[in-house]
């Protein structure tokens, strides 16, 4: 086909149309309303923590306390939360032998772990931290690779019966961004660098992450803790 000026001009029109469509799509992506995002590395204010040292489960007088630093988008944390924690809860927490303290440690490489942690924090405002926490972990495969993570967490909140008005306001304000960062900072100072990490009596746990190993750990510590009282 010989290239007549008319043919080339027609092609320029096609190129122009493609350019307009491409620029329009990019412009839409740039200007569309931002989804809820929770900032990282915020400056932590004293009011952010206000005595908050993690989410607690178990009797206050339990002889052993374990602090878990975890990341909602971490696959290993998910396995631990969904496969091991139910047994640990039945055997140790509900029997009053162990108190569990959950703390956020959102890793930088997981883009949605911070917003997941914030969703759980907003559920905590309404007394539903643990149900939301469990739901987020159970559904990790649904939201981890999805761009609709915030919507999925909101659906969990709705299914749990949360007041969505309060939940939405909490999420939009990023109310607990500082608290999550404080938790991360505290974990890093304690030597946490990966997730999940358990601290027992302030020391990093080096053992296996299964319910039997945790039970043996509590068995070994409980008499000592009890006698120390």
């Amino acid at each position, binding site marked *: 086909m010989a*290239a007549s000026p008319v043919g080339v001009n027609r092609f320029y029109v096609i190129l122009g149309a493609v350019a307009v469509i*491409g620029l329009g799509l990019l412009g839409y992506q740039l200007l569309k309303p931002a989804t809820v995002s929770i900032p990282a590395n915020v400056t932590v204010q004293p009011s952010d923590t206000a005595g908050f040292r993690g989410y607690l489960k178990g009797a206050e007088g339990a002889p052993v306390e374990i602090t878990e630093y975890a990341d909602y988008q971490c696959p290993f944390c998910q396995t631990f939360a969904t496969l091991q924690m139910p047994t640990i809860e039945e055997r140790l927490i509900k029997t009053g032998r162990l108190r569990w303290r959950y703390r956020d440690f959102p890793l930088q490489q997981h883009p949605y772990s911070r917003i997941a942690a914030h969703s759980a924090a907003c559920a905590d405002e309404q007394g539903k931290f643990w149900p939301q926490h469990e739901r987020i972990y159970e559904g990790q495969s649904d939201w*981890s690779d999805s761009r609709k993570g915030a919507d999925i967490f909101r659906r969990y909140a709705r299914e749990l019966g949360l007041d969505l008005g309060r939940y939405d306001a909490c999420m939009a304000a990023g109310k607990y961004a500082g608290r999550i960062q404080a938790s991360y900072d505290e974990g890093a100072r304690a030597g946490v660098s990966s997730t999940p990490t358990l601290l027992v009596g302030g020391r990093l746990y080096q053992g296996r992450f299964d319910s039997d190993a945790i039970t043996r750990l509590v068995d070994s510590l409980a008499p000592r803790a009890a006698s120390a009282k």
Partner: protein
Amino acid sequence: MIYRMGAALMSLVGVFVSAYLYLYKIGRIGALACGSGGCETVQTSAWSRFLGVEVALIGLIGYALLFGAGLVAIRPALARERWPVVLIAVLAAGGVLFTLYLTYLELFVIHAICRWCVGSAVIILSIFILALLALRRPPEPQAA
């Protein structure tokens, strides 16, 4: 001329694909539209940079150069000249080799596939093939 036009058009599409990925990489776009979900994994991996430069930016510059070469190649005054097509073929060959390296990383190192990267691979390969076809074609008669 049709192959030259095709190469120019595909280069323009490549500019937009790589611009989209680069805007994501610099945090201007919240999340990638990626059905498989592997895009986030690939784009946030350590291999999303090459020699300290964002791979998406390398792609954007490469496609912009190809588009510029494509615009030159479709000028009627240069319709009988081979050098603009040779330039496109050389640039696209470099792009194909780089894409092979990136695809290897996706499949065997990162273990995740980014659909936008697959799209870019198809685009650069098609530009290369179109350039080869244009080179095989005998020179066109002068337009009246």
